[in-house]
């Protein structure tokens, strides 16, 4: 009996020891902001509109030769639970060629081109005529797993970065500037709020040309998903990595740390139960009468 209890305790301790070890393994199975783009060469282009925005992989940098006054667009994918930060450093044209202070601004938009608030980072900065560079940044709110359609909360999908010279002397427009952009993400799907929420399709806008149906024509929306003949994936902006699906995906919402906490809790409760029972039977840790039968 005692030996059984010890074996139980050892098993439970093992399970407890595994708990923290298993937890990260669970999160690794789901899409995470892994620095997959770290090895990629920095992007050397920037788009000039939402439609033509240059797509950056997670962790990929951009280093672009631009002109003062250009409107530069990049797009990056973000998945639920992430908190993304965009950092921009602009190396300004030589001070000798500039005439007045200039203000640079970085703005973030979601896949629906809705302006997203920054929780940190100077979103704009004004450079005096003699400064060599200016650093700005923006930290998004944490991406939520679900939000009501009427809200403007950040959701998984494409995010657009727009870098603008919001204020400059006209004489300074067109001068060469060098832009460095860096997007980092922290956090993963386990932190996503609200828990159990799911956006059926990420906010990834189509980029293919649309097709107009004649007003009043029946079956106008016959196949809205197959519009304009663009194949899936070709007519879309930057999309976050799809979570892997398994055979058990439909049975429950998937592995997450809650399973390990709950299972661990159950094991602990069972152990405590056995322990409590043993305690009442042998209050002082001694056996009243040696039973040959219970010994195994």
């Amino acid at each position, binding site marked *: 009996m005692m030996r059984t209890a010890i074996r139980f305790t050892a098993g439970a301790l093992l399970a407890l020891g595994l708990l923290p070890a298993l937890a990260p393994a669970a999160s690794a199975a789901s899409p995470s902001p892994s620095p997959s783009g770290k090895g990629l060469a920095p992007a050397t282009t920037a788009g000039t509109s939402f*439609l033509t925005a240059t797509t950056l992989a997670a962790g990929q940098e951009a280093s672009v030769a631009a002109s003062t006054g250009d*409107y530069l667009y990049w797009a990056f994918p973000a998945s639920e639970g992430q908190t993304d930060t965009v950092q921009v450093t602009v190396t300004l044209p030589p001070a000798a060629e500039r005439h007045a202070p200039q203000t640079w601004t970085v703005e973030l938009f979601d896949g629906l081109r809705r302006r997203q608030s920054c929780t940190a980072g100077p979103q704009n900065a004004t450079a005096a005529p003699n400064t060599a560079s200016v650093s700005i940044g923006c930290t998004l709110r944490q991406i939520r797993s679900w939000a009501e359609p009427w809200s403007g909360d950040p959701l998984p999908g494409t995010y657009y970065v727009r870098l603008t010279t919001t204020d400059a002397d006209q004489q300074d427009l067109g001068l060469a500037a060098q832009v460095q952009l860096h997007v980092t993400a922290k956090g993963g799907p386990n932190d996503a709020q609200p828990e159990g929420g799911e956006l*059926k*399709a990420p906010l990834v*806008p189509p980029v293919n040309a649309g097709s107009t149906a004649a007003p*009043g024509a029946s079956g106008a929306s016959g196949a809205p998903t197959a519009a*304009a003949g663009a194949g899936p994936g070709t007519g879309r902006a930057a999309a976050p990595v799809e979570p892997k699906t398994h055979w058990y995906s439909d049975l429950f919402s998937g592995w997450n740390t809650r399973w390990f906490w709950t299972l661990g809790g159950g094991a*602990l409760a069972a152990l*405590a139960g056995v322990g409590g029972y043993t305690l*009442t039977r042998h209050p002082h840790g001694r056996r009243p009468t040696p039973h040959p039968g219970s010994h195994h």
Partner: protein
Amino acid sequence: MTTMRRRRLQVRRPLGLLAALAISAGALLSGLPAHADETTPASSDAPRVDLILDVSGSMRTADLDGKSRISVAQQSIDEVIDALPSETDFGIRTLGATYPGNDKSIGCKDTQQLFPIGKTNKVEAKTAVATLRPTGWTPIGLALRGAAQDLGTGQTTRRVVLITDGEDDCAPPDPCDVARELAAQGTHLVVDTLGLAHDDKTRQQLLCIANATGGTYTDVRTQDQLTGKVNQLVKESGDTYRITPAKTSGTDKCETAPVLNPGVYSDREKFAEHRVYRVPVKPGQELRASVSVSMDRAVARDYGVLLQATDPTGQELVRGTDAGSGRTDVASTGVRWSASGASATPAKGAGAAGAAGDQAVCLVVSNSFAPQPGVAADPGLPLELTVDVAAASPAPDGPAAGLGRGWVLLLVLTGAGLLTGLVFGWVARWRIAVWREN
């Protein structure tokens, strides 16, 4: 789309090679490459770039790194031609290259196609550029029209790279008006301007042309900058030329509004105008729409854009809005909407939408831009509309299957287990005691 095409080419090439090897003994060899060419996309599908080079008299000025403007431009174009991507259709047009006289009426018609747009013979193109000598006037407006003609019409974006050192001395037509007129024709033309001179008038004119067509303006100070920028523009046009919105025309009423399928659309909206579009949304679907209104001309400091989704009777469902002030290119906003619950409005707008069960949602786009004095109101501001319909996402039920997390949970469960064990133990002891007594 580009990647798809590339992949197809990659597949085709090895296949063609294999076939060629198999029949290499035969005399049919010459026929095969021709066949391969036939299956590649037509040249009209290639990215098209037309370079307009100013060869007016002022290009003689030597103020760029001690070299004359024309020699800097010529050397840069040489390097650009060398680095030209093989799929790009490239052409060169000149202005002010032939007429050295003083007669304005003749000098202002002086623009020719130096090298037609197509697959470039690099040697010929470079020779043609090398023979240019700074000569005449600067008819930029006319050259832009010519370039638009050279590029032709089509579904893809075409790009004009304008290298000049001076303001147009031939207006009318004013080059900025020409640019706006070309943009309004919906021909997907983007004009990028590069200025070799640094005076205010030139800058203002080139900025105006670039703004009107969604292009960029660069003030060239060194030869490297010029080469790098033109290379960048050519490469960019190859990457993005297929991304073009479909042209549509919104109306002022929901009943007559065009019905839009998912995709990207372009339209024009005047100051204070409302434009209405219709999107059929099935039950269980979510409408996603976004709109951008571009400022292609001088507008008042503060501005805003509003996108309203209404039902066919005009009841507002959701609105998206954005406002701002200061220098920017577009003001944009978006909305999401899905019917709240299946029973809420079943097939309310079925008649208008056509198919049964669909609800027609009207998208009303309005803006609060104001023109600066003297700015033309016509054609309207460029408007870009993105429409998508996706599966609706119902409200979540709560955390995964009622599972818990955290140290408090462990403590509670362990405590409960311990308590249960103790109770059972005591009960067992009590029963034994009772049994012994009996």
